[in-house]
């Protein structure tokens, strides 16, 4: 399997927990599936923004060259920005490590979302699925 995927993460490394927030994620673990090379992109700048965190985060993902994003909750603006950048979104990924999320993706157990699952402003929506 090839391609570069970005997983929202609470800290660097495959053992870190997935950060369920997209826009205000601490950072992204970026994995090149062809080589399994791993890097980390800090997203702290977005966390501090009064508005537009999701858009900033989407720009960070695009800059990292990722074609797929794995996260918990992606808001409408971030979703729109990611779609414009031809970056596919997989949502509702939470409560597992980055490594587990990547494995699930590789096994084809995760589905690409066709709509955002979080309201504007990036609130996680109390953990509800859907």
């Amino acid at each position: 399997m090839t391609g570069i995927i970005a997983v929202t993460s609470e800290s660097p490394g495959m053992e870190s927990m997935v950060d369920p927030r997209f826009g205000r994620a601490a950072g992204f673990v970026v994995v090149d599936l062809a080589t399994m090379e791993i890097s980390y992109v800090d997203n702290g700048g977005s966390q501090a923004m009064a508005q537009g965190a999701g858009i900033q985060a989407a720009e960070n993902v695009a800059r990292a060259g990722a074609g797929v994003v794995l996260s918990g909750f992606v808001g409408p603006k971030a979703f729109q920005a990611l779609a414009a950048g031809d970056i596919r979104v997989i949502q509702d990924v939470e409560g597992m490590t980055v490594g587990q999320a990547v494995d699930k993706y590789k096994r084809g157990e995760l589905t690409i979302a066709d709509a955002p699952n979080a309201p504007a402003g990036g609130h996680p929506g109390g953990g509800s699925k859907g």
Partner: protein
Amino acid sequence: MIYAIASGKGGTGKTTVTASLAALWDRPVMAVDLDVEEPNLHLFLHPELTGEEPALMEVPEVDTTRCTLCGQCAAFCQFKALSVMGKKLLIFPEMCHGCGGCLLLCPEKALSPGGRELGQIVSGSFRTDHLSSGRPEDAPFLMGRLRVGEAMSPPLMRQVKARLPESGATDILIDSPPGVSCPAVNAVMDADVIVLVTEPTPFGLHDFRLAVEAFRPLGKPLGAVINRADINRRAGISDTGVQDFCRAEGIPVWAEIPFNRAVAEAYSRGEVVARAVPELRAVILALMAHMQGAAAASKPEEADHA
């Protein structure tokens, strides 16, 4: 002179006080509702509304044939309303604050101003009790009304305020948004005198204190109106917290408005309470005199001309 009637929180009776002042004001006056998220001064003043115009904000629109996706506009916009993603310049109009910076900056002249409707500016006139020619006078009324779903009130408020000089009124009474956030400060910023309406309860005192902290640095004369001033006595409680705070801070109490059945009934019928309840008339007239006195003391030259 501009008088802003404000309060640290909603529901203190700020609008009732504004309506009463507007009805009894003894000089040419204009009543302005700047509480654009929830304007309700008109429900008491019953103005005849004669004009309604959309208030627009200039948000950028892109000419994709010219845009080179250089990203300069996106890097400039501090509100993240612009983003270059892939082969597209994305514009998020609802995040734009209309500063116009990106329009000036684009080297390709690819951006042009488009309109986003912030809300409406409604104008009209209401009847005052002021008898300059032996008859009640009509006075101008102006109201900003934020579009449902629009998040930004300050740009709309600025457009309403831009109309104030046209009115020709000697005095302007502004019903300000409650609270101490950006819109509230925006409303009182240009006032000559600030009237803070509060209630004699612990919650009232808490929000009043925040309002004093937020507005006092503006350096304008400030006075307090204690609404429902007798609720503690009626309930057999002794709570002089607001009065004590005013005394300690040197804030004059310009009016203590009693609360009773007649006031509540007039309010629920959408009447100007100072018209409906005779004992309130004197309280509001005294408040008016304090406000005018504070304004004159702060700007002696202007008062001489008036």
